[in-house]
């Protein structure tokens, strides 16, 4: 998909800033390289849905989780389509259906098992957050809960933006470890 038109209106810059994340997330979930036709198709579909639906985004609501959520959903749909196609062809559908990545990243659904798993994941992440040093924890909170960018966090905390990047990265690594617990 070519770059978004600057005339698309509010949110263009935010959407465009997330293009590397959307392409990367899609490539990661599909286990393909960026540039692969499926990756680019899914990324285009993600931005199409985002552009169509951006008016429904509440004022002040964070664009990043919304857009990445769409990207994840589109990629998982593509994975499921691959699985169905593989099953039709008598191929490795079972392999794809039991792919841990699908189970791991699927949206928390209404089923009791999914809800329980989600609650456990929340508890693990909260524990990991509590164990972080104060400043990385604050930086992550400001980013995720107040929706501040790295520069705004740096100004708020009175530190260089590189320090914020370091805190967020290290904090995220701890959270990633917590998220991947009990997953094999």
């Amino acid at each position, binding site marked *: 998909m070519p770059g978004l038109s600057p005339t698309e209106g509010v949110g263009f810059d935010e959407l465009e*800033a*997330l293009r*590397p*994340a*959307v*392409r*990367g*997330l899609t*490539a*990661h*979930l599909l286990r393909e*390289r*960026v540039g692969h036709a499926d990756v680019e198709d899914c990324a285009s579909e993600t931005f*199409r*849905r*985002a552009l169509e639906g951006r008016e*429904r985004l509440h004022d002040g*609501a*964070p*664009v*990043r*989780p*919304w857009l*990445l*959520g*769409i*990207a*994840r959903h589109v990629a*998982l*749909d593509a994975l*499921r389509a691959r699985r169905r196609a593989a099953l039709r062809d008598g191929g490795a559908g079972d392999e794809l259906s039991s792919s841990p990545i699908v189970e791991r*990243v699927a*949206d928390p*659904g209404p*089923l009791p098992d999914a809800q329980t798993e989600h609650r456990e*994941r*929340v508890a*693990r*992440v*909260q524990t990991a*957050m509590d164990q972080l040093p104060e400043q990385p924890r604050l930086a992550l*909170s400001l*980013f*995720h*809960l107040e929706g501040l*960018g*790295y*520069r705004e966090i*740096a100004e708020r905390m009175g*530190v*260089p*933006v*590189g320090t914020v*990047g*370091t805190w*967020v*990265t290290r904090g*995220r690594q701890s*959270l990633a470890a917590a*998220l991947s617990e009990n997953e094999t």
Partner: protein
Amino acid sequence: MSHQSTLDYELVWRDDGHLTDIAVTSLADGQLELLPERARTHATDCAECADRIGAAALVSLQAGEALGEPALALAPRELMPATVRHPLPIAAVAAALLLAVLGVVPSLPLLRALLLQTPSLLLHAIPAVAHSAAVVLESGGDPAHLAVLWCAVAVMLMAAGLVVARVAPRHASKGEH
């Protein structure tokens, strides 16, 4: 207090020419403006770094969800697969109904006769069903009869369940729409 508003070179590049974890996390978080143009281009072109950005974005998304970041309850419609809405084929439906009516016309006299017979059929059927029920109830003291009855009912329920499961539209499992 004055600080640089972009990431320093050593925070962006590794010795092997790929992006550092900090640069990857920044890109995953949409902090594009903190990175030099060359790093953005590298993120677009390098499959290895793009995959790392994707993994970081996934962790960022999941961590945000776990921390209560306001997220996807916002716009469920964007999560629905793209569907093509087909208009109701009114002309085809009307033609089918017309054909059905025309097909029924020759048998209308028989239909009339059947309708006339219905009350008498019901009059005979209802007592027959009631009599069968009474027989079953009267044999209530016989465990063998009851056991057979319960088995028959269970088989019928299972058969009905199987029919429903086969006929009903399949709802996708977890996370599917």
